[in-house]
């Protein structure tokens, strides 16, 4: 079943094109990994999907509705009010390269604040959910610490739990391990793998090709703001069609 549909997406920074006419479908339970060199537009695509960056053209469709706007009865595109957009964003979890935990909140409250303040659940319910999710990312014993007391890998797993607390339909991972050493990278990927096994739909931008091979159903290769190739993981690594894909993979494999 189709979950996400990116339609003719374009994004420019000034006159520089960052994304050119992107079309991509993601199905429920699918694990999509985006690869490509830095500046190819992978991160920008993720950031456009949840409207951290506003696309200049094109549509994002997620499970029955458009993000960032809707089509009215007269068939006209109407932009979302900020509160409507905020509401739609609950369905998309995002994990950042720089973690961005809320520095003034304890670990448990970093996870609980979404359910508490956005979903208006009771303090007890929110914290119960937060504890459950922290156990899930193997950080239950750190619940009462502050972010600065945790390693990078632990912080990133808290960030994953924080996103999961909103029960999103889609999880976006924007280079989640680029700031981590190999051991911490392994910790984070283990958690991501466990979530993947549970059937959570995810899109991951990463340079860790080995991990991509392991977790992905589909690989998207991007270059210069364009999607060059979308293939199943088996096919793209054994038999890449496009010359550019072949060249990129020759560097990393």
């Amino acid at each position: 079943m189709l979950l996400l549909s990116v339609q003719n997406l374009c994004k420019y920074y000034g006159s520089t094109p960052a994304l050119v006419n992107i079309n991509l479908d993601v199905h429920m339970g699918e694990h999509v990994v985006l690869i490509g060199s830095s500046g190819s537009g992978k991160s920008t695509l993720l950031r456009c999907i949840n409207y951290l960056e506003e696309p200049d053209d094109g549509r994002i469709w997620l499970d029955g509705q458009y993000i960032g706007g809707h089509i009215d009865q007269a068939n006209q595109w109407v932009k979302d009010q900020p509160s409507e957009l905020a509401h739609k964003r609950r369905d998309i979890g995002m994990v950042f390269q720089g973690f961005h935990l809320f520095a003034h909140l304890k670990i448990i409250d970093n996870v609980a604040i979404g359910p508490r303040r956005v979903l208006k659940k009771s303090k007890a319910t929110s914290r119960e959910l937060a504890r459950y999710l922290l156990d899930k990312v193997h950080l239950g014993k750190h619940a009462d610490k502050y972010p600065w007391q945790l390693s990078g890998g632990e912080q990133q797993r808290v960030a994953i739990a924080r996103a999961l607390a909103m029960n999103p339909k889609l999880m976006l991972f924007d280079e989640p391990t680029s700031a981590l050493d190999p051991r911490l990278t392994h910790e984070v990927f283990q958690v991501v793998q466990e979530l993947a096994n549970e059937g959570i739909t995810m899109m991951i931008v990463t340079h860790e090709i080995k991990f991509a091979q392991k977790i992905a159903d589909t690989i998207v290769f991007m270059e210069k703001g364009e999607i060059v190739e979308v293939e199943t993981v088996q096919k793209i690594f054994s038999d890449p069609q496009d010359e550019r894909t072949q060249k990129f993979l020759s560097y990393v494999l």
Partner: protein
Amino acid sequence: MDIEFIVDILPRLLNPLKVTLLVSIISLTLGTLLGVSLGMIWVASTPRSFQRLLLNSYVWFVRGTPIIIQIYIAFFLLPKVGLNLDVFWVGVVALTFNSVGYQIEIVRAAIESINQGQWEAAGSIGMTQRMTFFWIILPQSARRMIPPLTNELSNLIKASSVLSVISLFELTKAGDAIIASSFKFAEVLLLLSVLYFSLIQALSAATKYLETEVFNFDKADFESGKTFGQIY
């Protein structure tokens, strides 16, 4: 140096000391309430908007004119617009007016110093801008406002001495009166300095406590990037 004289006049300065403390603390508090509100408006407004021009003009005026002139303006202007306040409250209005000008800048700088990633992370869990501001940005900025606000408090305490020109009976005015009747400049000025100094030191210690013990969440100043430097 007449130590006995100093001990003698000390009790007569306690009430004026209280006036100095009160006028400064009330002005700082009102100034913070207004400063945070106006600072938020500043941050939320777009460059070259009317609000921003107005707020900038205000800041420029406060920064660009001597406080004694601002005090005289309050003293002569308030009755003209029908506000016949007690001289204490004229002092509060003048000092608050002055302090807000500086605090807008303090608040603006503190809010803008919070990493953009905090806004993005809050947005990604469905928080509106307003929720993000109150639950995420403001608590973190508050801690960063404390050191400059401590500075501002010590400025206000010293600036309150200028309120003697509108004959508010605060510490400096009381000292002046004693000098006028006793001609013991050295003793009185020494005592005044010690009192101002002690007051400011005591309040600084209190705000230091606030900074390190109450807002104790980012000892490593986590989102400013220092953590990265330490771990990697």
